[in-house]
């Protein structure tokens, strides 16, 4: 059963119809093959770009779509439902445009933002380092000013689209002053001294590349500094608050796909002379899965509506990310259960969904870190 959505306008309905058409005809049929071959879906991102989907929540002035998060996230959900790696990729791209869109000067935005949002380019967001994951403020990639350039040295880890992206929104250390010594640079992929390591060999989302990015005397012009020197961590965390909503939406899409597959199978499969969906033990499992999917959707939409109205939404975004990704893990695991032995084989997509559901509990702040964000607000209230 496709997700039933309440959308705010006819344009939003048409946008979702377009998204579903692309998801159904261009993404879903290729997902399995690309995931198995670990092939990066660059052409698919180009199609999304051509269709205007790579800049949806940003201002029209710079080529964005000016759509509210409430709508953008539902587009994301539909795409992730067809192909998780592409959904997460779209979310990461959108997050990587955030720093320039909200912390860049008008001059910087006029110069680069139309390209970032225009659909031809793909972005990456580089915060983590091997020793600085949850404790991002401990990052140590150094940027030292030399005339009108920064000379950057260090290694960023776990970078989604590493080696494939056209630009890297990168957090670097410009002074030793802990969390106040971090700055944000918009680094072009062809920067001399920047290279990608061999991609990680992952459990899931194998079509999406994740790799370390190595900065070795990489020279980045100082006019690519976004915000003030020292504002980098705030920019990074601000980007993540919005990015997390994207991950929540992707997790809901993935869980919806698993639920749909489980319902389809349970309707067709018979045991003991009945469709297995007619056993209460299975029916209740499916009902719980549907409840998890729909309540997670409601949770991220509530956070998005707050953001769209300019209200604080960090707690709600963390709650949405926590709830939606934990739900997706449970729903995809249960989907494998509903399919029995078939679910454990690669002939059906649910084992892949289950592998894909694990990582949203980890990236963009582990679910332990989300609890810390939520608890901090409770404590300070």
């Amino acid at each position, binding site marked *: 059963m496709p997700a039933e959505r309440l959308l705010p306008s006819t*344009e939003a309905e*048409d*946008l979702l119809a*377009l998204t579903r*058409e692309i998801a*159904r005809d261009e993404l879903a049929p290729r997902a399995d093959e690309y995931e198995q071959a670990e092939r990066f879906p660059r052409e698919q991102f180009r199609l999304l770009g*051509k*269709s*205007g989907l790579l800049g949806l929540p940003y201002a029209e002035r710079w080529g964005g*779509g000016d759509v509210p998060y409430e709508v953008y996230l539902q587009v994301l959900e539909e795409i992730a439902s067809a192909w998780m790696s592409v959904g997460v990729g779209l979310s990461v791209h959108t997050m990587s445009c955030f720093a320039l869109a909200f912390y860049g000067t008008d001059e910087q935005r006029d110069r680069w933002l139309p390209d970032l949002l225009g659909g031809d380019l793909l972005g990456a967001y580089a915060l983590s380092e091997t020793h600085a994951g949850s404790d991002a403020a401990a990052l140590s990639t150094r940027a030292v000013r030399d005339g009108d350039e920064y000379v950057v040295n260090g290694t960023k880890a776990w970078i989604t689209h590493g080696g494939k992206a056209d630009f890297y929104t990168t957090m670097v250390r410009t002074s030793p002053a802990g969390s106040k010594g971090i700055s944000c640079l918009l680094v072009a992929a062809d920067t001399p001294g920047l290279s990608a390591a061999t991609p990680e060999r992952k459990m899931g989302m194998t079509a999406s590349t994740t790799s370390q990015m190595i900065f070795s005397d990489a020279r980045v012009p100082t006019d690519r500094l976004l915000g003030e020197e020292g504002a980098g961590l705030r920019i990074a965390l601000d980007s993540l608050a919005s990015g997390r909503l994207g991950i929540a939406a992707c997790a809901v899409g993935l869980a919806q796909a698993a639920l749909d597959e489980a319902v389809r199978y349970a309707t067709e499969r018979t045991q003991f002379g009945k469709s297995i969906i007619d056993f209460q033990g299975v029916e209740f499992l499916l009902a719980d899965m549907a409840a998890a999917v729909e309540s997670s959707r409601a949770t991220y939409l509530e956070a998005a509506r707050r953001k769209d109205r300019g209200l604080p939404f960090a707690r709600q975004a963390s709650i949405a990310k926590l709830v939606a990704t934990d739900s997706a893990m449970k729903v995809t695991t249960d989907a494998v259960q509903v399919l029995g032995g078939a679910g454990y084989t690669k002939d059906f997509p649910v084992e892949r969904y289950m592998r894909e559901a694990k990582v949203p509990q980890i990236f963009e702040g582990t679910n332990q870190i989300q609890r810390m964000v939520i608890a901090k607000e409770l404590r300070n209230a």
Partner: protein
Amino acid sequence: MTNIVVLVKQVPDTYSERKLAETDHTLDRESADAVLDEINERAVEEALKIKEAGEGEVTVLCVGPDRATDAIRKALSMGADKAIHVSDEALHGSDILATAKVIAAAIGKVEGVDLVIAGNESSDGGAGAVPALLAELLGMPQLTYAHHVSVEGSAIKVDRETADEGITHLEANLPAVVSVTEKINEPRYPSFKGIMAAKKKPVETLTVADLGLDAGEVGLDNAWSTVSEAAPKPPRTAGEKVEDDGDGGTKIAEYLVGQKLI
């Protein structure tokens, strides 16, 4: 400047289950998701290609109920310039003759039409006859089964492809009616910008009376033919299994002879 009218029809999505209404055996359009017929997306695409290759204006024309506005918006978001929507309660159950008459009258409202592009056959009640009737009513040449179209000056050239005859090359003077096949092109996806632009494009809504037609010429009651009965396709039977004990080939041949197939 080529002034093109594309005929577009809203049909039940082939991805959803399609049903006939119990009472009058017309298509139950409410029971399924309605979409712009894919063959008409191809017709729109072809019109846009002609426009983009030179100069032109593309008007989409749709006869259908109120909710056909969704199909019209899709065509506009792909890039068509404007639309005419003929919508009237009296049209419910119209046959191909009435449909063609209405379309012809509506085309009469567009000034200086050079080219009318339609789908060969629609995917719902497909009679495959509307374009031919229309060519007759408008007194225009008709070029059918087009799988390649080019406009050269005041002439149109079409490669016509059918299973029996292979490819034939057709040429006619404009204005003309062209009907296209599934193979003609891959329709573009609209873009989000196209969706936003579609909102501002003019859509003229007309009734049967606006077209100078009489309600007595259209609708189910005035159809020249009626569907008296309809039955669902019988479910597929299990078929016959042939065990291969070394003579499988012979057994299959015997079966086919028995069915008078060989």
